[in-house]
């Protein structure tokens, strides 16, 4: 199975290893991520304004590219996923945005939201299957108590993201079980860490990160995993420092016994 | 994308409403003061299954620009199954109208319950807008019937 893949800015630069973990794991699990040629940055923030068109075009280009290849579009970074999935929803359901975006794009055939956008985790859950993943794990992360940190972007708005129950998600917990570790459920896993504002309002962000850390370690977690590179950076920087935060692909590669391979590269 | 509107044009629209749900829904729209265009005129029938396709053709023949039929929601028919018959008949009629080149927007079926005054008003708004954008029905009107 081959998917169009949108890596996004961070995974292409600062966090290249996380991208490598994802690709090599995908290979081991029987699917391939084909990077979209000349993808452009999604902008990191979904433009909420109903009259924002230009800021949505980068996403439309990626979506259309996948459509032309007849592939589903897979994302890894939560922010890219959020932006692209929502823009796709606009292209499918909001007449005005669809018309105007297509006017800009001047494609041979207008793009009308045909591409299916999947997060890497959704591929693991719905295509590979967590049971199947479990079978392929060679190095189960036994004894690790991991708290899943979802943040905001993957889950909300629940109706559009249609990713999991926005108030009581379980996909990351199921993932943690599949790689042989023990999930720790704690209530702050879908509360914002303040990633956006950490640039200008570090104190606010610290406050939020600490709440998340306290809650997770209170319930017995020894580490957190997340799907958002910004959350990972922010939590690592601004929580109290007692709880390391990992990107989920790193643990995936580790469980599949592929981590060293990436490191050697 | 703006559609050029002929300000002078006022469409003639006939709405068939079943007595038990849609007519009552229109009454509720009225008592709740939910306005819609005066171009819509309602004909009361006992059930949507009383609407003979002939009535709709006749309306077009006599110069109506749009015809809408409203009934109880599927499964909620006062006569148990009338709206199912109506739905099939209208599907056939509309596909025939489509075949002979009448714009599909000129006809519509909508299920409106007695409690859905807002839906009735909203539906009529939409329908009138649609017919206004389509303009005069020239294809089916029998000019010999025109009242001069």
């Amino acid at each position, binding site marked *: 199975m081959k998917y169009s893949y949108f890596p*996004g*800015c*961070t995974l292409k*630069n*600062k*966090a290249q290893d996380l991208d490598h973990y994802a690709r090599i794991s995908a290979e081991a699990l029987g699917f391939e991520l084909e990077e979209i040629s000349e993808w452009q*940055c999604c*902008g*990191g*923030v979904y*433009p*909420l*304004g*109903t*009259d*924002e068109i230009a*800021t949505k075009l980068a996403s439309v280009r990626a979506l259309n590219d996948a459509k032309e290849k007849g592939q589903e579009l897979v994302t890894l*970074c939560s*922010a890219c996923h959020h932006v692209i999935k929502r823009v796709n929803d606009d292209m499918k359901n909001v007449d005005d945005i669809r018309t105007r975006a297509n006017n800009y794009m001047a494609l041979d055939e207008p793009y009308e939201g045909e591409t299916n956008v999947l997060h890497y985790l959704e591929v693991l859950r719905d295509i590979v299957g967590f049971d199947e993943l479990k079978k392929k794990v060679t190095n189960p992360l036994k004894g690790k108590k991991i708290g899943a940190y979802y*943040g*905001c972007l993957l*889950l*909300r*708005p*629940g109706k559009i993201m249609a990713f999991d129950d*926005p*108030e009581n998600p379980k996909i990351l917990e199921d993932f943690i079980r599949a790689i042989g570790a023990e999930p720790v459920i704690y209530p702050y896993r879908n*509360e*914002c860490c*303040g*990633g*956006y*504002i*950490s*640039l*200008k*309002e570090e104190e*606010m962000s610290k406050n*939020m990160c600490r709440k998340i850390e306290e809650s997770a370690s209170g319930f017995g977690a020894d580490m957190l995993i997340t799907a958002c*590179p*910004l959350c990972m*950076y*922010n939590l*690592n*920087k601004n929580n109290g420092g007692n709880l390391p935060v990992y990107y989920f692909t790193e643990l995936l590669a580790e469980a599949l016994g592929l981590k060293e391979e990436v490191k050697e590269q | 994308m703006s559609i050029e509107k002929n300000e002078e044009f006022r469409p003639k629209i006939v709405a068939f409403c079943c007595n038990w749900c849609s007519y009552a829904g229109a009454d509720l729209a009225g008592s709740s003061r939910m306005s819609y265009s005066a171009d819509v005129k309602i004909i009361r029938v006992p059930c949507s299954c009383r609407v003979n396709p002939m009535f709709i053709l006749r309306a077009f023949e006599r110069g109506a620009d749009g015809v809408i039929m409203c009934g109880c929601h599927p499964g909620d028919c006062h006569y148990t199954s009338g709206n199912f018959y109506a739905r099939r008949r209208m599907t056939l009629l509309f596909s025939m109208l489509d075949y002979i080149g009448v714009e599909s927007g000129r006809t519509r079926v909508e299920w409106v319950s007695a409690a859905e005054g807002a839906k009735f008003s909203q539906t009529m708004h939409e329908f009138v807008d649609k017919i206004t954008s389509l303009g005069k029905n020239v294809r089916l009107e029998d000019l010999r019937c025109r009242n001069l």
Partner: protein
Amino acid sequence: MKTEKNRAELIKEISGVNPLKCMKCGKCSASCPSYNEMDIKPHQFVSYVINEDIESLVNSKSLWKCLSCFACVERCPRDVKPGKLIDAARQIVVRERDNTYLSPDEVPELLDPETPQQLLVSAFRRYRR
């Protein structure tokens, strides 16, 4: 110069929100992680738009404290979605004025070696035109 009425209408248009649907339950304010940092509270946004006091809204600190975490959007029982309103107000500011909340000159000193691109990209998109 746009009148306050124009600007209120613009906010409604950009956000797609009808502030009259609000029933003042306060679930947005109860959900907001930035509540304590805000001078105008999430449940109050609607009143400023209804009362056409956009000047206060665009000068409020809240504009820059909102995280766009969509907790209020997700939980609002009335489909009002205050997060969208505040974002529209922020749009008005960045579209009307040159002075924005983040100047490129101040960026270098805010960076550390680990800062992901995503943070800069999103900060610029949120704070600037």
